[in-house]
């Protein structure tokens, strides 16, 4: 158990409302489950009793106290899926994986659970594997789904996925392009920005694929802090026009072609971003997509 990891997570969320939940969620995402020692440490570090932490950890279905497999299969047994034969699908998964609901395969590859409604009833029977939704699942499809999960779902491809497109941005002050062809993220030129926070300086790079939230940074900024974002060429701070709808911090503005501005949240770790299109003509869209 890496004590420092837990310590860091606790410090990050200590003052926020409902901190315990955020702490547990983050530990769960780091380790895949909530190890006993981690819960003990959280109790100690947050000055609360282990009994309370344990009560929260066992109350929410999202938390697991047992190690989970690499892939999580959730089969919906909600009313709508149930009448469409979900129990048979759950049985099939359990037969093919060789485990019952709530268990993990011995090779730690798959965990299998049943849930009550995934909110996609019209598509039932619904199965979710590693956040990928499968609709109208039949027993015949089960094997295919497992195989696909084994191989790993590929990230959506910007060339075929129409929801994702490339944008090109410039500094609103000196109009220098902020695109960095040298350094690619998601297989495309990244957006290069200079950043600083309480004396620390660094470069952050964002994916230029609108819809992707991949970033890269060489500065060691604490998550959740608001940082100042500069143009790496003219060294001017990027102006702020909007407030982040996710967290309320200021957003840094860049220009994206003639008619649009691109805003990103200045809170490190917040994924808030926005493309503001002033005059939505075909031309401006084309230009933006570059």
């Amino acid at each position, binding site marked *: 158990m890496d004590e420092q990891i837990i310590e860091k997570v606790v410090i990050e969320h200590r003052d926020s409302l409902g901190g315990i939940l955020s702490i547990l969620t983050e530990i769960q995402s780091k380790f895949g489950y909530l190890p006993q020692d981690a819960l003990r440490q959280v109790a100690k570090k947050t000055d609360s009793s282990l*009994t309370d932490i*344990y*009560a929260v950890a066992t109350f929410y279905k999202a938390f697991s106290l047992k190690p989970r497999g690499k892939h999580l299969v959730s089969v919906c047994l909600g009313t709508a899926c149930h009448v469409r034969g979900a129990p048979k699908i759950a049985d099939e998964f359990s037969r093919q994986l060789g485990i019952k609901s709530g268990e993990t395969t011995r090779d730690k590859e798959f965990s299998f659970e049943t849930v009550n409604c995934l909110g996609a009833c019209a598509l039932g029977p619904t199965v979710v594997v590693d956040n990928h939704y499968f609709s109208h699942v039949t027993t015949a499809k089960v094997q295919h789904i497992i195989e696909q999960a084994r191989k790993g779902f590929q990230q959506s491809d910007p060339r075929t996925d129409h929801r994702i497109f490339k944008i090109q941005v410039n500094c609103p002050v000196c109009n220098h392009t902020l695109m960095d062809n040298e350094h690619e993220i998601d297989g495309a030129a990244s957006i290069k920005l200079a950043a600083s926070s309480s004396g620390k300086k660094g470069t952050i790079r964002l994916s230029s694929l609108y819809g992707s939230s991949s970033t890269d940074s060489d500065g060691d900024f604490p998550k959740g802090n608001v940082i100042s974002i500069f143009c790496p060429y003219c060294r001017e701070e990027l102006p702020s026009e909007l407030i982040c709808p996710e967290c309320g911090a200021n957003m840094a503005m860049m220009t994206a072609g003639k008619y649009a501005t691109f805003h990103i949240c200045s809170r490190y770790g917040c994924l808030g971003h926005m493309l503001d299109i002033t005059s939505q003509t075909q031309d401006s869209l084309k230009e933006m997509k570059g």
Partner: protein
Amino acid sequence: MITLTINGLEVSVEEGTTILEAAEFLGFPIPTLCHMEGLTPYGACRLCVVEIGEGPGAKLVSSCTYRAEQGLKVRTSSARVMKARAMIIELLLASCPQSKIIQDLASKYEIRQQRFRQEYEDCILCGRCVRMCEEQMMAKAIGFRGRGQNRSIGTPFDIPSDVCRQCGGCIYVCPACTLRCTYTEPEKAICGGCANISPPCIQKDSFNDLMCYMDPCVACEIKKQ
């Protein structure tokens, strides 16, 4: 001071008083299970239901958690209350028939049948022990775990707690595990054992001063005469 009416009688109580306390002050009995003096009201068992308000707006509330309000009209044993209470006792019987306290409640409220699937739980999740441990013993060694059907009380990870001093406070306050009914017909939800056997103290003088759970005790009444 707040004035409210309980079963037609007016009573003035301090602000913050619960209906249960006000009714006790007037001498109206309200059965309770999860309530305990010295512990914060929790409202888990619902046995202490009373009816408040009038006409179609009347509703059932748990008197141990409901604070008295100015002009409130309370009925502690209306037909609706009695019906609800009987149902609650039936449900308690269905989950935990071994508890002498619950069996006594059943006899007192003349419950003659139990219509639910019979279970034999050890715990009714009233939370008395949890509050005792936290509030009086300052230990917080036990707590609630899980939820819904899987809710249970115990220590984290089911291993002996390092903050538990083994004071026994939790067992002392438990309405389900201290006094056990040891009746002989486990399929039957309603024990009635106490009502049917002739107590040994009737026949043997040597039992006279033994500690006895019978309350009220038929034998004592007979002897007194």
